[in-house]
Structures are given as C-alpha cells and as structure tokens.
C-alpha cells in the first residue's frame, strides 16, 4: 500500500466488502453444514475477518500464502474464487480441488494460496521452504504463514521460526490469537510470555496488535510487508481476535463463560469497520447494499453448488502420482 492510500475510505470500503464476502461465505457454510449439505468439518472464521483481509490487501497475486484448518477467510482474501470454494465444500465438480479436499484442503495455486491444512503448524515448515525456493529462483515475492494460537506449541512452529531467521527468509508469520484452541484456553497450556516473545527470542521482530481493527491491521502489515520485501528477514504479527462461533460449525462452545461471546460482538471487525466508514461519510444505505450484495453472491454460489455434478468415481483415482499410479478398481 502506498503511504497516501492509508485509511482512504475507498480502500477501506473495498476491504470491508471482502470481509462481508467472507462473513457471508462462513454463514452459508455453517447453515449448509447444519442442513447436511456440507460434510466433515467446517471451521468458521467469523469474527476474525479483518486479519486476513488487512494482511492480504498488502500482498501481490504472486506472493504465497499458507494457512491452517480455519482457512476459508485467508483463501478468499488472497483471491481464491469463493464459488469454487463453495462447490468444494459440497464435494462437487468445479470445486477448488474437484471435491477431493473439502474445507481443510482449500487451495488456489493460481493466486499463490498454497493450501489450508488439516495438521496444525505444518504450514509453518512449508512456508519457510517456499521462501527458500523464492530465494533460489531469485523471485521478488514473500510468503505469509497464518497460524492459530494453539499451533505455537507444536515443534514445527519453533523450528520454522529458527529456520526463517538463520536463512533470513522473506516470511511473515501471522498468529491469529483468538485465545482458545478447540476447547482449551491457550494461556493455560502455554509457558512464558507467549507468541511474540517466542519470536523475539529468535531475534524475529514481533508486534502484537488488535486484529479486529481493520485499519490497524492494514497499516501495520503494509509497513511490515514492505520491510520484508526490502530484505528485513522474517517478522511476526500477533493479531488479537475472538472466535465468535464454536471451534467448528457443530460446536456449541459450552466451555465459554456465559455472555462472553455476546460481549465480544461489540468489538467484532465488521461492525467496527462500519462505524468508521460512517464517520467518513459512507451512508447506512451503502453499507446495507454491500451486505445484501455479499449475501446474494454467496446464496447464488450455494444454488450453484447444489446444482453442480458429483465427481465421477474414477476421479478418486486421479492425481495420486505419476509413477505407480493406481488404476480404477485395482487395489494392488
């Protein structure tokens, strides 16, 4: 982002629309999960949208991104096609993985989105390797790795921090700290001062910000991504946030203090961004129109997903490997 674009209403309004698209996508994913149209697990990003949108607004198409199990928002923010994503959740032809991956394996390599991930912290090691490839190929790109606060207690996260630093790799680690991992409060299982301190102990600059403040995420990542592009080496942003829904769509989050989620609504990023836009002269009507547009767009994708064909059984046997590839109906 150029300096003169900072906090420009038009830029923020565009980011706001991206957030709405993610919100609508996640609501629809949840509804269709409950209706039995989407199987497996769906980890909604509701309440955390400002992080993905604010960061990705400062990325280029060719930059790379790795994500984790809560990856729909990162994918949409990086430019993946939400229609293809919805078809993927429905397991249909035309889905991002042709129905072979589902929610936890959304990827769109055409926009540098190297995949959500079903194994916590595995995206960290993949990121540093992707950054090594960038160096070897002398490309002008960076890698962003998103990780949850629970993921920081896995070894690969700590290995990857060390690795990124010793080779001075262009990696931005973004820890989305929603303070809870499934049903466990992260603080109760994390020694020391936490995420930022861990990064700093490796000599990696780390900053903690309010991840529900879209403008702050945008401004902070603009600066940091610029620094990484100019060779600063890895950096880490800890973005504080709150998961407004259960861990996955069927989790009622009964482990929470009653009233906690309701109280958090006051700080959720969509409303906060709306309040700011209003101070900039955007009307309630324009905001309502934007919300309707996002909802209608996603509703249409749901209709499309229902109508899309199921994959052919033979598709289960493709894209396993070239050498020693399986044949349909042959198990040996």
């Amino acid at each position: 982002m150029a300096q003169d674009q900072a906090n420009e209403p038009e830029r923020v309004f565009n980011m706001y629309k991206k957030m709405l698209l993610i919100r609508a996508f996640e609501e629809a994913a949840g509804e269709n999960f409950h209706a039995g149209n989407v199987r497996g697990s769906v980890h909604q990003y509701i309440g955390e949208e400002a992080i993905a949108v604010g960061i990705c607004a400062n990325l280029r198409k060719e930059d790379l991104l790795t994500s984790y199990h809560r990856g729909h928002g990162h994918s949409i923010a990086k430019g993946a096609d939400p229609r293809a994503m919805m078809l993927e959740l429905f397991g249909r032809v035309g889905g991002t993985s042709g129905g072979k991956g589902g929610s936890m394996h959304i990827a769109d390599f055409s926009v540098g989105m190297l995949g959500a991930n079903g194994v916590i912290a595995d995206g960290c090691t993949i990121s540093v390797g992707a950054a090594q490839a960038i160096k070897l190929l002398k490309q002008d790109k960076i890698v962003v790795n998103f990780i949850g606060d629970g993921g920081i207690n896995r070894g690969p996260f700590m290995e990857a921090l060390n690795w990124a630093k010793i080779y001075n790799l262009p990696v931005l680690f973004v820890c989305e700290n929603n303070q809870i991992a499934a049903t466990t409060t992260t603080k109760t299982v994390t020694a020391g001062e936490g995420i930022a301190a861990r990064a700093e102990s490796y000599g990696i600059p780390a900053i903690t910000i309010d991840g529900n403040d879209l403008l702050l995420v945008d401004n902070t990542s603009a600066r940091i991504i610029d620094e990484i592009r100019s060779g600063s080496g890895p950096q880490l942003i800890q973005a504080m946030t709150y998961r407004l829904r259960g861990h996955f769509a069927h989790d009622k989050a009964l482990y929470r203090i009653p009233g906690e989620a309701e109280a958090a609504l006051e700080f959720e990023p969509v409303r906060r961004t709306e309040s700011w836009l209003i101070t900039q002269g955007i009307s309630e009507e324009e905001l309502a129109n934007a919300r309707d547009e996002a909802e209608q767009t996603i509703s249409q994708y749901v209709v499309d997903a229902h109508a899309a064909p199921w994959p052919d059984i033979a598709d289960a046997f493709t894209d396993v490997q070239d050498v020693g590839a399986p044949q349909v109906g042959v198990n040996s």
Partner: protein
Amino acid sequence: MTEMTYAQAARLGLKEELERDPTVWALGEDLGFEGGMAGQYKDLQAEYGADRIVDTPISEATIMGAAIGAALAGTRPIAELRFSDFAMCAVDELVNQAAKARYMFGGQARVPMVARMPIGIRGGIAAQHSQSPEAWYAHVPGLVVVTPATPSDNRGLLKAAIRCDDPVVYMEHKGLWGSVGEVNENDVEPLTLGKARIVKEGSDLTIVTWAGMVSVVEKAAITLSEEGVSTEVIDLRTLWPWDREAVFSSVIKTGRMMVVHEAVQVGGFGGEISSEVTEHLFDNLKGPVKRMGGARIPIPFSIPLEESYMISQEQVIAKARSFF
C-alpha cells in the same frame, strides 16, 4: 566403465543433476564440511554454493517440510535425513503433506522432491540407526519408494528420483556405501522407476529381493545353481511401484518363489509380493511362496546378536533347498 563406490556413484548422479537443472538443490545436516555421512555430497557445497547444498539445523520436521514447500514453489529439493530412523521425526510432513498435496488440492500441485533416508544395518549402530522401514512408505498412496542395490543403480535411480514429479522416498542401504561396482560414466540417462533388474537368470527358483540383501542372495544363488538348483534373482530396485511383470514372468517360468529382505518379516513388503503371487499365480506354483525377513526384535548391538538378526548366505541356501 569406471569403478566406484555406491556413495561415489550417488555423488556423481547428484552432481550431474545439479549441473543439468538449476532448480535442483539439497538440504540436510552436515552436507557441507562433512560432505554427507558417506561422502555422497563431498565438495558439492564448495562447487554449487551454500544456497544449493544447504547445511540445516537439526530440525528434521522442517528439513522435510521445507523441501515440500520448496517443491510446491517450483524447485526440486533433495531432503537428506541421514538415517531412515531420524526421518521418523518427519513422517507427518512426508505422509500427510508431501504424499497428499497433489491429491488434496485436486491436481493443482506437484511435489517433486526426494526424501533421502538410508536404511539398514551398517554394523554396531544398534536399534535407532539400523532399521529398514521401507514397507511403511510403500503403504502410503502418493509416494514412490526406491531401494538401490549397486553403485550403478545408485546413480541412475537417484537421477530418476530427482527428475520424478512425485515425492520419492530414496532409501540407500548404509551397509553398501563402500561397495564397489562398475559405472558407465558416458551413460548419463536416468533409469526407469519401476523396472526390476534380473541379477541372475535361472529356471527352478525365483528369489525376489532388494537393497542390502541383493549381494547376499546373488552369492547364495551362484552356490545353489552350482548344486543344480537354477536360481533366478530379481532385484526389485523400487518397491513402489514394484515390477509385477518381471516377478510374475519369472515365477511362471520357475514355479517357485521366495522373497528375502532385511526388514522385519512381519508386515514387511515381502508379504505383499507373496500374497499377490499366490493369488494370481497359484496354478503355476509348485510349492508355497516363502519369505525370509528379520526377526521382530529391535536391531541389537553386540556382534553375535546383530549377526543373529541378519540373513546369511547359508540361511538363504537352506531355505531354498527346502523347496526340493
């Protein structure tokens, strides 16, 4: 023809690929100064730079994971794990990421990497440095599993593994590092993955084997043939895919088959081959398919104990005689 060791031949193959393709690189512990455990990377860092022969921290999960990320991002990395035993620190990355990325992402991605993880007994390195877990990886869809047995193959198969667009688990046998053989330096073409080598022809008995057991079985077969049991020896070279055609046509000819491997017999890959042959060639068989593998014990340290684990030429001969 040039005489060289198994390790030197691997180095030659790697050097040829580094020369040929600037996106080929290697990462692992102690590759620069030490040149790899057996000199299979000797002086390559000096020649190709520390960005292409990368000395890494002792972070096996990231050696594997970074190789995957680098493969997804357009390069051809060779992840050197030194011992298949240490590669177990990175099984998740290999099995959950490398083997599945192409599939999970609906064909958007390829993971053209080599996970190099030597197997086998080298003498006195005991339970955590001697294992042969090749069957584990043959069990995983998406992976190719290669087990070279000669210097020449260790060059040609490594080159094939590096050029392969699938993740390849490349399992050199540590006991073979110093073994010497002829290598045709002028023949720079890689071998074809999935093609077995007929080590010795015969008409009475087929013995299928790979990696460190090939030379043991070959010697046993020479003795057996002298005694009148004409023995065919097949070096599978790759376990996935394994060369069914070579094995089946040999068994159709001989009517008898035995599989010999150093890995623990229980759950070993010999069971898969035995079962396939029994199921499809039952009418051709003149006797039961037999297996020889290691006992289901950790590899012991002390000389007599370790030797008791290993399969000897004499044991192969005795088992072969039991067919007749």
